[in-house]
């Protein structure tokens, strides 16, 4: 089937198998490999992207159902542009080690700010619990999200 969607501000028309997930569309057809396939069934959060302003697990989202604009880590941090304030905060707080979960963590973090859950560390801990980090940079991630929220000043 044909699918028209907006990814990182670019309107795209793709021919897809209706069974294709959003994650496979991004990684295999659009070559956006920032979102990671950690578990492929919604348990780890490494594939988190933002669709229509809300964070979704792209491995559990059928591409054919996507109508709203998709934002991935590549759209948040264009190669030629400055780093997003949240990505900067992750760097400054050493909020990752191997970096595998980081794109998902940052996309989640940006959405958590928009959801209004980045006010204090307890809310951040709960709201970020869907993103696993096996290196266990969790306390640094909380600091980064709180700091990133301040730097974003309410915007995205």
């Amino acid at each position, binding site marked *: 089937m044909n699918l028209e969607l907006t990814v990182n501000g670019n309107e795209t028309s793709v021919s897809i198998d209706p069974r294709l997930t959003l994650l496979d569309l991004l990684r295999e057809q659009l070559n956006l490999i920032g979102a990671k396939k*950690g*578990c492929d069934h919604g*348990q780890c959060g490494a594939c988190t992207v933002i669709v229509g302003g809300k964070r979704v697990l792209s491995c559990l989202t059928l591409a054919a159902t996507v109508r709203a604009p998709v934002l991935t880590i590549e759209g948040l941090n264009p190669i030629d542009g400055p780093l997003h304030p949240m990505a900067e905060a992750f760097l400054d707080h*050493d909020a*990752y080690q191997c970096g595998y979960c980081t794109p998902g963590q940052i996309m989640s973090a940006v959405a958590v700010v928009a959801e209004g859950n980045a006010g204090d560390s307890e809310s951040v801990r*709960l709201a970020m619990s869907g993103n*696993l980090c096996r*290196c*266990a940079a*969790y306390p640094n991630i909380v600091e980064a999200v709180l700091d990133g929220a301040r730097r974003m000043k309410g915007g995205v």
Partner: protein
Amino acid sequence: MRRDGRLIGYGMATSYEPCFRFPASVKVALGRDGKAVIAATIAEMGQGIITGLHSLGVETLGLSPSDVTLDTSRTTLPAGAGSIASTGVYSNGLSLVEAAKTVRAKLLAFAVRNTASPLYGCRSDELAVLNGIVVGPAEKSESVAALMARHPTGVISKTITSGRDFGSSKLKKSTFGAIFTEVSIDPATLDVRIERMVGAFDCGQILEPTIARSQLIGGMIWGIGHGLFEASHLDTRTGRWTNADLGEALIATQGDVPPIEIITVGSERNAGDALFLKGVSEIGVIGPAPAIANAIFDATGQRLRSLPLRIDDRVMSDNQPSLRGAMS
């Protein structure tokens, strides 16, 4: 002790991990442009070994950080030590520093022999290399790049292999730690929450404080998983793991992790140790599980003897806090 209806318990445990050393070959090559390449097969898994070895190289050679690069990911490079058992920086670092010291000494020897150099005729022990400049007495100086541009072969390199004895020594070297934790337990459901944790560690000289802190925090959180969640369950009829995915092989998530404080203390420098480094990463994992078990005992009187400290063991234990609460 109770707070907000939950039982509060405190526990502590000590930890200890012997320091090992593995054989490592590291090559340091200073080129005509005054830039150095450190070459060895080294596995960076996110633990920060590249940053640590880079700063050792920069410090020993006296070059500016941007003039030192690491070449690590080709099998034709000298065989570095692996990223195992908290030994990577130590094992590779000892070879690296020895090679870098040799390169630096050869550079200074060339400077004092080269008639075109302002440093010609100085004694090499009067010279220092600071931020890419060779500095001598009476304000004489020349940049490493300018010196190397006149070097006959254009390269000074040295490969050092060390650690073939696996660090055997009469002086046994170990990392030590002490973990303190506060837990709260719901007396009815026996749900355990780690409220906070403090870990104090002797890891020798800390090379990169930010990275070491992150490694120790990560280790302690693995320790929380070790204490409360992590187990592989085998179905003995089929030989298959019954929880072989991230939804059922429980690991600590963001919501399970309390505020964690890390304290590192230096320790006495052993004679004959070129680099007073010890392992960092794994020492963090070792103490939390027994500290949590002790805190549960403090809160409830339940002495649990197997890991992880699962809810079914807590429910089946003799000392039921809800019963004790009703009786007291």
